[in-house]
């Protein structure tokens, strides 16, 4: 038998989860309405498509689409960039920092996180631009 305190905390967590689930569903519903309105307008077809989408996404396959929506929102907020910075700074959590201290060439950059990232991105962009210019020059010669 669960203790009353544990039962209460479990109930609170379940309640919290249900509330947040409802809020998430409302935001997804708003997204569906806005998407269908932009494409089909507010006519009968639009309302029918809205209903089908809402039923399928919010009730039939919510376990899938809820996770996808959370992931989508996190990516929209730029969590991917933060993770890239995070793993550049920490060396991918694999002990790259110690390798670097020991004098070996690790996978982590030895610069300062974001600066190093932008330097590498700049190098890559310059390389791509040079390749594009070479291709253009070859086409011109032909």
């Amino acid at each position, binding site marked *: 038998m669960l203790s009353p305190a544990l039962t209460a905390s479990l109930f609170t967590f379940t309640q919290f989860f249900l*509330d947040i689930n*409802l809020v998430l569903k409302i935001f997804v519903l708003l997204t569906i309405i806005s998407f269908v309105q932009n494409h089909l307008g507010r006519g009968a077809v639009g309302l029918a498509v809205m209903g089908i989408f809402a039923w399928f996404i919010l009730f039939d396959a919510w376990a899938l689409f809820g996770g996808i929506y959370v992931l989508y929102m996190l990516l929209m907020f730029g969590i991917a960039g933060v993770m890239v910075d995070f793993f550049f700074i920490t060396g991918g959590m694999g002990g790259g920092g110690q390798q670097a201290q020991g004098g070996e060439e690790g996978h982590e950059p030895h610069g*300062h*996180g974001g600066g190093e990232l932008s330097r590498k991105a700049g190098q890559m962009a310059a390389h791509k631009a040079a390749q594009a210019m070479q291709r253009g020059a070859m086409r011109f010669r032909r």
Partner: protein
Amino acid sequence: MNQNGNIIVFIILGFVAIALLPPLIMKIFPLADILFRILMVFIIFSIVRGYLGEGLMTWIISGVLIYFLVWKYAYLTASVYVLQILLGVGFASVIVWGIGTRLRS
């Protein structure tokens, strides 16, 4: 724990500290609490109106969202809102970079 482990822990602690800051401020300064709640009401209503336009549905959905986000879970909403703003302006990268380079040197 090695040096990388420490950096990871400190970066996570940094984010947790930033997430805890808005509820702390709201608890200490009641005026900040009220101001944040008013701000959130306006933000939620304008978001819903942006999606649905003017109408009864806008008021109903805004009411439900305001009840949950402003009344029931105001502290959580404050944390998430501040983190979202920081992520939006790219400040999270600065935090990761700052804490990481500070600990490495």
